[in-house]
C-alpha cells in the first residue's frame, strides 16, 4: 500500500522535476510528461479507492522527518475513506484539466509552456501530500506547498501588474490564515504531545472545552485563508488573473477545498467544540450569501465564477459546521466537477475570444460554441441544484442537515443563496451565450475550440451530471461510505440528522430547494432574455446597492485602509525613519560625537610649547612627591 501511495505522490513530483529542470529540452512536448504524470496516479488512486471501499485502510511511515526529543514527525501517509475520496477527486479532475491545458496554453512561449506544466504537476504533488498526510505538520507542508503553486500560477503572466499583485496577495493572505493554523499546531503539541492524527484523535478527549474551542477556531482561521471564507476571502477573486485551467484546478476544484478537507479531517476535534462548529457553520453561511450577492452584478466571467466558488465553499463549511461532515465532503466532491467544468468552459470562451472576459461584450455565443455552451449549462444546472444533477444531491443534503440539526436561520440563508446562485449563473449564461451579440467584432472571432479542449469539457459535464447519483448507492451512498469514518468517531454525540430521516419533512425541504432554484433561473430568464423587469432600470433604481455590490462592498479598500497602509506607513515613517535612524542611530552617533567633543576640549591643553609640557612635568612631580610624603 505504501508503495502505491508513494507512487501517487511522487509521480507528479517527478513530472514537475523533469519539466522544471529540463524546460529548455521539453519545451512544447512538456505535456507528454505532465499528463501521464497525473494520469498514472489517477489510475492508481482508483485502485487505492477500490481497496478502501473494501475495508482496507493504511496509516504508515515513510521516514522520520523531524525528530527532536518527544517531538517526532514522520513523512507518513494515511489512507482512509476521506483521503481516498480526495485523491480520486484531485487526480481525476487534474488529469482532464491537464489535457485541456494542452489546448489552452498553446499560445505560450516554449519555456513558459514547460514551466506551466511543471507548476501544475508540482501543485498536484503538494495537494496529494496535503490529503494523504497522516499528521498535521505534513498536511501543513502540502498546505503551504499548494499555496506556493497557487502563487506561482496566479503570477504566471507576471508581466501583468495585476497578476503579480494577485499572486502576492494570495500568498500573504494565506499566510495570515496559516498563522492561526500554526498556533493551533503549537497548542495541539503542547497539550497532546503529538501532531500525528492517530495520537491526536486518540487523546483528544483530554482537551478541556475552552482549549478544544480555541484550537478548532485557530484551525478554522487557517481554513478561512485557504478556502477563501470571510474575512480572508479577498484573494480568491483576484486569483482569477492566473490562466483559466489553473483557476479551474486550484481555485475551484481542489486547493480551495483544502480547508473543508482539514475541518472534516479534524472532525474529532470539532465534535468536542460545539461553539466552533457554530462559528464554522455561521461563517460558512454568511460567506455563501455575501459572495453570492457580489456575483449578482459582476460582469467579469471569471470573477462571477470566483465569487460562486467562495459561495459554494461557504456551503461546504455549513455542511461540516452542522456536523454533516459527509455532506460537506460530498459537496466538495461534486463541486470539483461542476465548478471545474464551468471554469474550463469560461476558459474555452476566453480562448475563443482572445482573452475577453466582459460579459457585456458577449452574447449569442451559443451559435458559435455549442459544446462549450451546452456543457456550461449542464454545470450551471448542477450548481443551481436542479435534480438529478450533482449539485442537487450534495447541496440539498447540506441544507437538509442544517435544517434538521436546528440551524433554521442557516438553512434559510442557504436556501436564499441557492436562489441567488441559480440567478447569477443563468444571468451569466444568458448574457454570454444567448441574446443578441453585443460586440460584433468579438462575435466574429468566436469559434469552437479543438477537441483537446472540448473533450475534457464533455467528460466533466458527464460527471457533473451523474456523480450525484452516487448518493443513491446502497449502504447510504456516498455519504454512507464517508460516514464509516465520521460516525466511528461520533460515538454518542450523534446529531438527530443521522437518526431517522423524516421522510415527509425531507420531501418538503427538497421541494423548497428545487423551487427556489427554478425561481432563480426564471428570474434570470425574465431579466436578461425578456428584459422584464429591465436590469438597467433596476440598476438605476437601486443605484447605491448596485454600487456597493459592484465595488465588492469596498472590502479591499477597507483592508488597505485598516491594515496594510497603516503597517507600511508606521514602519516607514515611525519605525524606520524615527526609531531606527533618528533615535537608535542618533544615540549611537551621539555617543561618538560626544567622544569627539570631549576630545576636542581636552586637546586644547596640547599647546605645542615645550615649556608648557615641562611645567606639567614639574607639577606632576610635585604632586606625586607630595602625595608620597603625605601618605
Amino acid at each position: 500500500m505504501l508503495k502505491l501511495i508513494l507512487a501517487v505522490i511522487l509521480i507528479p513530483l517527478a513530472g514537475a522535476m523533469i519539466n522544471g529542470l529540463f524546460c529548455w529540452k521539453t519545451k512544447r512536448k512538456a505535456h507528454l510528461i505532465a499528463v501521464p504524470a497525473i494520469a498514472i496516479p489517477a489510475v492508481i488512486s482508483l485502485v487505492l479507492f477500490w481497496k478502501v471501499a473494501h475495508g482496507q485502510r493504511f496509516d504508515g511511515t515513510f521516514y522520520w522527518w523531524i525528530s527532536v526529543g518527544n517531538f517526532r514527525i514522520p513523512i507518513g501517509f494515511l489512507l482512509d475513506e476521506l483521503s481516498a475520496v480526495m485523491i480520486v477527486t484531485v487526480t481525476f479532475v487534474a488529469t482532464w484539466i491537464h489535457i485541456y491545458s494542452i489546448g489552452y496554453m498553446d499560445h505560450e512561449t516554449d519555456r513558459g509552456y514547460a514551466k506551466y506544466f511543471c507548476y501544475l504537476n508540482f501543485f498536484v504533488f503538494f495537494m496529494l501530500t496535503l490529503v494523504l498526510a497522516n499528521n498535521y505538520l505534513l498536511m501543513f507542508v502540502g498546505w503551504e506547498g499548494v499555496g506556493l503553486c497557487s502563487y506561482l500560477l496566479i503570477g504566471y503572466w507576471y508581466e501583468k501588474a495585476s497578476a503579480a499583485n494577485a499572486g502576492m496577495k494570495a500568498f500573504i493572505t494565506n499566510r495570515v490564515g496559516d498563522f492561526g493554523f500554526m498556533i493551533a499546531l503549537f497548542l495541539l503539541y503542547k497539550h497532546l504531545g503529538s501532531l500525528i492524527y492517530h495520537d491526536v484523535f486518540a487523546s483528544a478527549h483530554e482537551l478541556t472545552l475552552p482549549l478544544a474551542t480555541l484550537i478548532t477556531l485557530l484551525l478554522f482561521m487557517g481554513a478561512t485563508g485557504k478556502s477563501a471564507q470571510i474575512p480572508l476571502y479577498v484573494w480568491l477573486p483576484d486569483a482569477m488573473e492566473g490562466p483559466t485551467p489553473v483557476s479551474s484546478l486550484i481555485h475551484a476544484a481542489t486547493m480551495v477545498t483544502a480547508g473543508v478537507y482539514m475541518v472534516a479531517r479534524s472532525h474529532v476535534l470539532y465534535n468536542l467544540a460545539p461553539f466552533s462548529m457554530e462559528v464554522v457553520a455561521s461563517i460558512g453561511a454568511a460567506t455563501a450569501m455575501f459572495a453570492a450577492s457580489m456575483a449578482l452584478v459582476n460582469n467579469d466571467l471569471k470573477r462571477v465564477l470566483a465569487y460562486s466558488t467562495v459561495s459554494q465553499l461557504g456551503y461546504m463549511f455549513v455542511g461540516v459546521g452542522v456536523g454533516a461532515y459527509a455532506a460537506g465532503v460530498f459537496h466538495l466532491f461534486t463541486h470539483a466537477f461542476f465548478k471545474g467544468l464551468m471554469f474550463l468552459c469560461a476558459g474555452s470562451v476566453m480562448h475563443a475570444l482572445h482573452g475577453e472576459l466582459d460579459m457585456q461584450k458577449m452574447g449569442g455565443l451559443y451559435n458559435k460554441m455549442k459544446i462549450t455552451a451546452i456543457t456550461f449549462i449542464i454545470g450551471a444546472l448542477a450548481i443551481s441544484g436542479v435534480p438529478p444533477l450533482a449539485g442537487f444531491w450534495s447541496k440539498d443534503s447540506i441544507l437538509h442537515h442544517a435544517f434538521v440539526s436546528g440551524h433554521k436561520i442557516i438553512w434559510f440563508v442557504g436556501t436564499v443563496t441557492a436562489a441567488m446562485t441559480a440567478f447569477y449563473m443563468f444571468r451569466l449564461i444568458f448574457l454570454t451565450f444567448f441574446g443578441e451579440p453585443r460586440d460584433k467584432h468579438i462575435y466574429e472571432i468566436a469559434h469552437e475550440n479543438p477537441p483537446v479542449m472540448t473533450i475534457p469539457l464533455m467528460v466533466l459535464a458527464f460527471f457533473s451530471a451523474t456523480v450525484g447519483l452516487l448518493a443513491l448507492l446502497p449502504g447510504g451512498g456516498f455519504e454512507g461510505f464517508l460516514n464509516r469514518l465520521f460516525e466511528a468517531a461520533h460515538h454518542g454525540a450523534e446529531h438527530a440528522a443521522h437518526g431517522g430521516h423524516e421522510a415527509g419533512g425531507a420531501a418538503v425541504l427538497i421541494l423548497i430547494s428545487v423551487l427556489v432554484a427554478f425561481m432563480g433561473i426564471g428570474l434570470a430568464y425574465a431579466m436578461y432574455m425578456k428584459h422584464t423587469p429591465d436590469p438597467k432600470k433596476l440598476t438605476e433604481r437601486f443605484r447605491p446597492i448596485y454600487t456597493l455590490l459592484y465595488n465588492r462592498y469596498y472590502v479591499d479598500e477597507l483592508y488597505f485602509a485598516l491594515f496594510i497602509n497603516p503597517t507600511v506607513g508606521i514602519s516607514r515613517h515611525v519605525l524606520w525613519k524615527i526609531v531606527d535612524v533618528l533615535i537608535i542611530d542618533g544615540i549611537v552617533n551621539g555617543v561618538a560625537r560626544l567622544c569627539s567633543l570631549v576630545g576636542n576640549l581636552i586637546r586644547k591643553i596640547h599647546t605645542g610649547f615645550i615649556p608648557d609640557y615641562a611645567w606639567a612635568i614639574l607639577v606632576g612631580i610635585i604632586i606625586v612627591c607630595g602625595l608620597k610624603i603625605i601618605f
Partner: protein
Amino acid sequence: MIPVSWIFALSVLVFATGALGVLIRKNAIVMFLCIELMLNGANIFFVGVSKMRGAAEGHIFVLFMMAIAAAEAAIGMAIITAFYRRKGGVEVDRADLMKW
C-alpha cells in the same frame, strides 16, 4: 672642611636655577644653557655623594656625564642652528607643530 650638606644645597640650587630657566625662558639657547646647568647640578650632587661615601664611583659618573654633555651640546647646538635657519629665530614658541 666644607660639610656635605653645603655641597648638596649647592647642587639643588644649581639644579633649580636650571629647571626654572628651562621653564620660564623662551630663547632656545638660554634653555639649552639651563639644561647644562641642571646637568651640572646633578654632577655636583654625585660629587657630594661620592665624597660622603668615600668612594670613587660618583667621580667616574661625573666624568662620563661631562663627556655626554659635551656630545649633547654639539648636537643641541646643531639642532638650534637648523631651527634658526627654518624658523628665523630661536624662540621655542616658533615650534608649534605639535600644537593640538
